[in-house]
């Protein structure tokens, strides 16, 4: 399947706080970042951890400013996020 996002796209990380294992770090939930690159396709960790069938899904490297994540700071944080964790920002 073709990647939903391309480098440079603005995306918002899901703000859902699931009851199961997830690889969305709490500090990026709901934050808007910029796609750096695709890291390739990997089975979704949330499904694998629950023993569910996990189809490979694109993982993106997404860059966030510290200001967006924490309201302060001059650095950037790059986080790897599966496609289903992300929403398009228009």
């Amino acid at each position, binding site marked *: 399947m073709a990647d939903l996002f391309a480098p440079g796209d603005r995306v918002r990380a899901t703000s859902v706080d699931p009851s199961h294992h997830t*690889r969305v*770090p709490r*500090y990026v939930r709901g934050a808007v970042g910029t796609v750096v690159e695709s*890291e*390739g396709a*990997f089975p979704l*960790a949330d499904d694998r951890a629950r023993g569910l069938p996990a189809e490979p899904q694109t*993982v993106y*490297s997404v*860059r966030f400013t*510290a200001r967006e*994540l*924490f309201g302060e*700071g*001059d*650095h*950037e*944080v*790059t*986080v*790897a*996020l*599966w496609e289903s964790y992300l929403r398009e920002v228009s």
Partner: protein
Amino acid sequence: MGGDHGGANAELAARVRHVEALLEQRGLVDAKELDREAFLARAKPDNGARLVARAWVDPGFRDRLLLDGNAAIGEVGVSMGGGLQEQRLKVVENTATTHNVVVCTLCSCYPVALLGPSPTWYKSEAYRSRVVRDPRSVLAEFDFVLPDEVAVTVWDANAETRFMVVPRRPEGTEGLDERALADLVTRNGLIGVAAV
């Protein structure tokens, strides 16, 4: 394993293989476990240091390393697999204007093949929670103060990729050969909490 395949060593190796086979046959060890032990014995920061030294002396290798880490590291005889599943490697380079530092905020993911087992502080909640929030202060606690004009990027190894930092080549090292350059590189430099 030594490079000597003759005499007493060969006899010893044959005996070890025989014992391994018996242990496996009787279900006492799994062949994969033995592979993993061998992998851990080879996994040490010297591997990362050799990659950095090669990148410093060979601009073509540097470009390949930054573009596709998994493919390039084979040129120096190391890999991200070795008894374990091959992991995706992303190599990031420090420059005069940008500095990179690595963390795993969710657990302790780390490029073991290139850096060896991770230090205790890397797995501590204090490092994992604070370096994403305030990297400059955390680096200062490692006695590494970055000038304000150098931008900082923190790489969270929270999913499938492992990261290694190429530090800046120190000034005054023009006369050193690749091996001497590798000796300058520290584990902390490869994580991004030291200058080299």
